[in-house]
């Protein structure tokens, strides 16, 4: 009996806590960020100034894009995030599933300052790109001789045993790199066999990792000379003192959208919209370029020449990037994951 009573009182306590939780929710936002120096910069540029300006609390949960999407799916009936950030195209999948809410251009004060491509999907639930990353080739300037020029150069025998690739099934940058390698080998989004065949030919003389810290470790230990990955990560390696350079290969770099999205079915839409608007303001866009070499999506950003040279700056440069159809990515990704895992497994 007493046990039953205690269970009842415990349940009541839990219920009280839950309700007080939702009462607090009006001035609390729950968001995700990607951890490490990224999250530190995120806090400095967006989260902390936002908390100060609106006198609210922002609760940050560290989770990569794939994990965040998995959580959003699991919480479909009762979402726990207000705003989610995605990199590499998962926002389209989430929007198609109805997990994200549409935004009207009139709801964002900074809408008119954005490059059109970066806000093209907001009325379908695909949040604005608050910046973009560019996928190209990272190489060790002391070891990789000659320097790579083309995506196909990762097969150059001069780099044998020192090519580093990133898992396309668990890492969205890895997936975009794989799609580009597929494209330069004559494949399409409906047929990635040419890309997989090309990669299969490299398996014996390369390493495949799944997380970005492993990329840094492999460059630091001298195991990696050439790796398809992102421009911003190259700057992380350079800051760590490694002799690394980033190039956009002659076939073009790949645009990796990084978006800030409104979660559907949450009570504090207005505050969440303010956060999104705050994320895309010129000051933040500029800060991301200066701190971590992400490319701005706000037209009014003015960068110093040194920094402008290390990001994709301006509409003309951005237009040269290769971008892949996000709807096709969403539809085909489960199949690609399987085909990829099968192709690389020993």
């Amino acid at each position: 009996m007493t046990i039953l009573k205690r269970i009842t009182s415990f349940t009541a306590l839990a219920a009280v806590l839950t309700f007080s939780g939702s009462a607090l929710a009006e001035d609390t936002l729950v968001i995700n960020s990607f951890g490490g120096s990224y999250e530190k910069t995120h806090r400095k540029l967006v989260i902390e100034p936002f908390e100060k300006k609106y006198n609210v609390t922002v609760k940050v949960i560290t989770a990569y894009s794939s994990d965040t999407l998995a959580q959003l799916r699991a919480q479909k009936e009762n979402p726990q995030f207000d705003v989610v950030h995605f990199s590499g195209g998962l926002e389209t999948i989430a929007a198609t599933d109805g997990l994200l809410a549409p935004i009207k251009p009139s709801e964002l004060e900074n809408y008119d300052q954005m490059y059109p491509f970066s806000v093209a999907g907001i009325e379908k639930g695909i949040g604005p790109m608050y910046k973009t990353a560019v996928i190209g080739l990272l190489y060790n300037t002391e070891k990789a001789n000659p320097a790579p020029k083309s995506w196909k150069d990762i097969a150059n025998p001069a780099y044998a045993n020192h090519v580093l690739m990133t898992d396309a099934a668990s890492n969205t940058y890895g997936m975009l790199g794989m799609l580009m390698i597929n494209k330069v080998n004559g494949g399409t989004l409906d047929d990635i066999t040419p890309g997989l065949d090309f990669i299969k030919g490299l398996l014996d003389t390369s390493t495949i990792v799944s997380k970005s810290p492993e990329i840094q470790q492999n460059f630091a230990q001298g195991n990696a000379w050439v790796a398809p990955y992102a421009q911003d990560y190259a700057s992380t390696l350079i800051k760590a003192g490694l002799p690394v350079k980033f190039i956009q290969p002659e076939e073009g770099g790949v645009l990796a959208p990084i978006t800030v999205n409104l979660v559907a079915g949450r009570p504090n839409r207005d505050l969440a919209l303010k956060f999104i608007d705050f994320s895309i303001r010129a000051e933040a866009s500029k800060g991301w370029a200066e701190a971590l070499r992400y490319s701005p999506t706000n037209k009014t950003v003015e960068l110093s020449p040194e920094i402008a040279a290390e990001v994709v700056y301006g509409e003309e440069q951005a237009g040269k990037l290769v971008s892949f159809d996000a709807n096709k990515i969403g539809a085909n990704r489960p199949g690609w994951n399987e085909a990829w895992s099968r192709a690389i497994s020993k």
Partner: protein
Amino acid sequence: MKQASSRLGEPAALITPGLIFLVLAFFFPALNMLSLSVIGPAADGGGFTLEHYAKFFTDDYYAGVALRTFRLSIIITVTCVLIGFPLALIMSRSPGWVRSVLIMLVILPLMTSVVIRTFGWLVILGPGGLISWVLETAGLVGNQISLMHTESGIVIAMVQVLLPFQVLTVLGSLNRVGPELEEASRVMGAGFFQTIRLVSLPLSIPGIVSGSLLVFALSISSFITPSLVGGVRLPVMAGSIYQQVTGSFDWGFAAALSVLLLGATLVLVIPYLFVSRSGRR
């Protein structure tokens, strides 16, 4: 009457917290998983289906993943028994302070986070790491070698963390036996190894069995160490399940893989328990 009710009531009260926890944290999710594994995609109406299981059995890729998982778990378990039994024997017959030091050394790996410990292995096993350097300096290998992304690397890193479970359970059953029987055996003329084979080993069978069951169950479901040390080219079951959930978003298939993993583990574990029990009699 009153006596009978308290005789039942007391054990029931003691078992309740554990039972509630088990129901909430194991049986409920396991049943949920079982139902997920036989429900088709919502787009097709979400009716009963065996397609997830059919996919596993008609696909040699997943059979390969399952085979690797079981093969590695068996190798890890056998290695733990081979290292763990002699170690436990020495510990049980050592003076108190030596035993304390050895126990500390054995459980030390459990006191570090799995991620930090695994990154330690990355540094030691990786190209240009300690092992590669030692072998190269000794002139045994010409080039830099790496145990990263190999099955041997997975076994080494897993044995390190699972060894305490084996050693401590065997130590428990050896301590219960006490040294007197071994002394008697030596007095009666048996040699050192003969005593181990005929006295210590048979008497510590219960400890070896429960220890190796623990090790096997932990290694078959382990995820972080195989994925960091083994890498993406050596997928194991737990990693494939995680990939299905977070990468491919195919929960039905992930649930089917989990049910099969659980089932296959039970099929191996239950006969093992029966054999060891009849062996003890």
